[in-house]
């Protein structure tokens, strides 16, 4: 065929094509085996905060201790921590199903679920820096901080099993987090286990980095060359650290914020009006962030807790963090929700909104409410449970409320806000 080509295809464009082909094949590169990566950001953070240097040896120690306790992405391990019933939180068979490379057997039983469904966003390590992460806003969750947004437990509490199941089944509207409701129940269960596993592993890693930063120079986290007593003492303290992390997950199951249903006979119009007053009022002060028209434009310069680790407002620090590699995603501001759209990421049922307002949204600026009893003395700062229900009524009514309604009904509140 080249005979016919030579006269019509200029050599220039041909060279161009060849270069392109080479470029693409260099892309194709080789695959790397799935492995857990180190939390370089947190280690650097410790170094900066305490003005110490964590040596390569100490970093290796952290990695080895973690591998000993938690295994690898292909062969996860449930650490034995004595004292707590870790099996309630991490189930070894479920972890096996969720981990490893993607495959399934003749009866359709799958393996490698996490890598099939989640890792391209959340990363093999659960660091929220999977390959697709850079394009998504919000970024996929970094589980390693052990902080979750949409849950029934109070601030700083872990999500319950039920909470994680809701997230996986429903997804998070308006974000890249998909709904996995087509997956069979046992696969969902395995994935829940695996999220907890990655989260626990990640949080233990942070604790170990923290312990390491406290060591005097040359001292090791777990010194295999040290004396027997030293070693068992070191191992015991590591186990204790891990146990503390796991315990929080055990506790979460009984920590869901109890909810009393609102009075179904309540005067809805009055409740909405009351909610509106609270929304613009000085105590709840929702308007500060969500804005005068509740469009989510009250303030748009804040960051979530994951981003704050990079010290985004400290230019020198930020540069250092970003310099670690392109797995550190550039900081982006978190925006309060536009409440006029009626889209709620943590669920749209009234009790979901009640929980969001009561407990705040962990890891974000959205604050928890200071709750006071119905019988609190007049003038006590805080909101009663009925007040929160009024806020829920108001928020639920917001998408239908005329946007041209003046933001503040009574002059009195305006003065208080100023």
């Amino acid at each position, binding site marked *: 065929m080249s005979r016919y080509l030579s006269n019509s295809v200029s050599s220039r464009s041909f060279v161009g094509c060849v270069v392109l082909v080479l470029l693409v094949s260099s892309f194709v590169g080789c695959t790397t085996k799935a492995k857990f990566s180190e939390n370089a950001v947190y280690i650097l953070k410790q170094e900066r905060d305490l003005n110490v240097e964590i040596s390569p040896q100490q970093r290796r120690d952290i990695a080895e201790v973690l591998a000993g306790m938690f295994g690898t992405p292909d062969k996860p391990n449930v650490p034995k921590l004595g004292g707590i019933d870790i099996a309630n939180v991490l189930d070894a068979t479920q972890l096996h199903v969720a981990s490893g490379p993607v495959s399934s057997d003749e009866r*359709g039983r799958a393996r490698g679920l996490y890598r099939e469904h989640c890792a391209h966003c959340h990363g093999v390590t659960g660091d929220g820096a999977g390959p697709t992460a850079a394009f998504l806003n919000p970024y996929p969750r970094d589980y390693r901080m052990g902080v979750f947004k949409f849950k029934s437990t109070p601030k700083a509490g872990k999500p319950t099993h039920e909470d994680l199941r809701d997230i996986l089944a429903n997804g998070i509207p308006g974000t890249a987090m998909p709904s996995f409701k087509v997956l069979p129940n046992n696969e969902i269960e395995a994935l829940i286990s695996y999220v907890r596993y990655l989260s626990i592993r990640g949080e233990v890693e942070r604790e170990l980095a923290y312990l390491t930063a406290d060591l005097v120079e040359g001292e090791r986290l777990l010194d295999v060359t040290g004396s027997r007593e030293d070693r068992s003492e070191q191992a015991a303290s590591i186990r204790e650290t891990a146990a503390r992390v796991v315990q929080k997950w055990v506790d979460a199951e009984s920590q869901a914020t109890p909810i009393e249903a609102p009075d179904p006979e309540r005067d809805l119009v009055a409740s909405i009006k009351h909610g509106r007053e609270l929304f613009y009022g000085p105590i709840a002060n929702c308007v500060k962030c969500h804005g005068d028209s509740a469009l989510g434009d009250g303030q748009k310069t804040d960051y979530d807790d994951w981003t704050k680790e990079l010290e985004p407002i400290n230019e020198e620090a930020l540069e250092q963090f970003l310099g670690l590699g392109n797995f550190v995603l550039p900081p982006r501001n978190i925006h309060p929700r536009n409440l006029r759209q*009626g889209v709620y990421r943590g669920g749209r049922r009234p009790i979901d909104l009640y929980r969001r307002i009561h407990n705040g949204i962990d890891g974000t600026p959205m604050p928890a409410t200071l709750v006071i009893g119905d019988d609190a003395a007049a003038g006590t700062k805080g909101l009663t449970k009925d007040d929160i229900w009024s806020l829920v009524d108001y928020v639920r009514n917001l998408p239908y409320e005329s946007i041209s309604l003046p933001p503040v009904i009574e002059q009195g509140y305006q003065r208080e806000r100023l």
Partner: protein
Amino acid sequence: MLLVCATFPLIWVGGLVTTYDAGMAVPDWPSTYGYNLFAYPWQTWLFGPWDLLIEHGHRLLGALVGFIAITFVWSVWRNDQRFGVRVAALAALGLVIIQGGLGGARVLFDERQLAMVHGCVGPAFFAYCIALAVFTSGKWKPVEDDLASANLPRLQRISLLTVVFAYLQLVIGAQLRHISVMATPGFFRGAALFHLVMAAVVTIHVFQLLFLAKQQNASVAALRFPTTLLAALVLIQLALGGATWVVKYGWPEFLAQHTFAAPYTIQAKSLFQSLIVTSHVATGSLILATSVMAFARSVRLNRVPTVALGSSALMMELAT
């Protein structure tokens, strides 16, 4: 022609295999769970797990294409004396065998990179079959024309570029699709942007082709069909590409704030999602194949420059 017809569904099912990550639903090869490929109990296959259905189905279809290729070589040997055609037919069979081997290796070594190569050779084979079909098509032999139009070499060059770009685009697409979970966000970002740039490049070339073919006098009707089809396919493909992003990753940031986009929740592994994504992959192959057809036809037109042109009726026949 039969070869072409059988290959396209193969690519579709192959695409489905990846969409459902079912490549490893059958861990052995060339046997299926110890059974010979053709002896695998069909009840288990058809009524068993979905992953098994498509992976085993893909294998059976692949075998079918292999048989067709063998028959093809055999018939060429009997009916066609031309050396070039015989070699080309053999090469097609060779490609089928290699592709089958690659598919097998992908399963045996469980290596995503191989899956990607397997995914890239498939459409190449499809395109090759199209080229073969054009070159061996009987209708061509008697054509004698005076098509020495000034634009033909240009058409030929641009259609070749289109082929190259379309194939590159397909390879980058496969990169995005088979992205290693260990790849960094920067790598994916680079590949995705490259995919977008190439989409623009391919689109520009395709429309240039359409324009050139329209400029030709009626005698190049043979080029009208592939170039028009190509333009239509590219438009569809652009829409499918955008849709693929949305069903997998949600609305891009600049749209996500709008009321129509805000409530959207991605439905992982839903029928709709897999339909969109697999269509995008299959249309990519079609674009490649159609551009190869345009190129092959332009080469053939260019090759018989100064012979008298038959009736326009003959040309009409050519075009179809």
